[in-house]
């Protein structure tokens, strides 16, 4: 049911030309996928997706629309046939590939027999907190998390340079020496 709603939302995103509506639909899409993650037992992921995907990403996109324009122009030169063909071929190849995937929800799948049982059995003794996801994130795989924060830091610097730098150049254009120290 949730999956069908996700597909309907994604199709509506393709059809609509009003970018404001597209961004709102993307927020709905994120919220729906967060609900799906709760159904699939991934509560931590659902929290993050609802806060980051549906919240922060939507706010960023709305901010961009406020700074640019909220209407997509009708394409004149883009032909829909070639992209459609590429998408159908890729999709068919992927669906052919699913025939080798082990069935959904089966406890005998290979993914459940590598390190996951060890995390579930030993993390309570080794780390001492009940939430296994937190133990793995902050202790067993803390280097991943360190790398993640590095990426976020780099992206924040990039955004500040791109937008902050532009604003300084614009304010320098009218020659007003009084304001140079503020910049």
């Amino acid at each position: 049911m949730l999956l069908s709603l996700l597909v309907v939302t994604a199709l509506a995103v393709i059809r609509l030309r009003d970018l404001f509506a597209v961004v709102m639909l993307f927020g709905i899409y994120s919220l729906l996928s967060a609900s799906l993650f709760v159904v699939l037992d991934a509560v931590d992921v659902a929290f993050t997706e609802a806060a980051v995907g549906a919240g922060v990403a939507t706010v960023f996109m709305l901010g961009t629309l406020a700074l640019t324009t909220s209407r997509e122009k009708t394409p004149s030169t883009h032909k829909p046939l070639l992209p459609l063909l590429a998408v159908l071929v890729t999709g068919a190849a992927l669906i052919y590939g699913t025939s080798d995937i082990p069935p959904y929800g089966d406890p005998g799948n290979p993914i459940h027999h590598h390190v996951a049982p060890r995390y579930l059995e030993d993390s309570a003794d080794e780390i001492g907190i009940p939430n296994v996801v937190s133990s793995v994130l902050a202790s067993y795989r803390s280097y991943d998390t360190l790398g993640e924060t590095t990426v976020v830091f780099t992206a924040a610097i990039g955004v500040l340079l791109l937008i902050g730098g532009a604003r300084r150049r614009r304010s320098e254009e009218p020659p007003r020496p009084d304001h140079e120290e503020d910049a």
Partner: protein
Amino acid sequence: MQILGLYNYWIFIVLMMCGFYVVISRGNLVKKLVGLNIFQTSVFILYISMGKITGGTAPILTGTATVYSNPLPHVLILTAIVVGIATTALGLALVVRINEAYGTIEEDEIHAQSEDEAL
């Protein structure tokens, strides 16, 4: 049973292809980024579906449950969500700068302006 067992994966492919289609067929840069995010979220759904065990519960040790879903995909996707918002923010900042430089966020018009400048 085999059909039901793959339903999640098929929906993931449909969603991924929706995002892919938006990215390659639309010229508007903001819409391309929305398509990229749909693509990304579909991959999250793939990973979380793989970690699910029928009859299991969330991987929080309570002492009463016996079957837990696999916590490892959850950790990987938590990281991916945060990295995803960082890259989206950077992309949107680039869109804002492109709009300041060219006055438009349509790919065709940007190409046309670049060709005019080259001539």
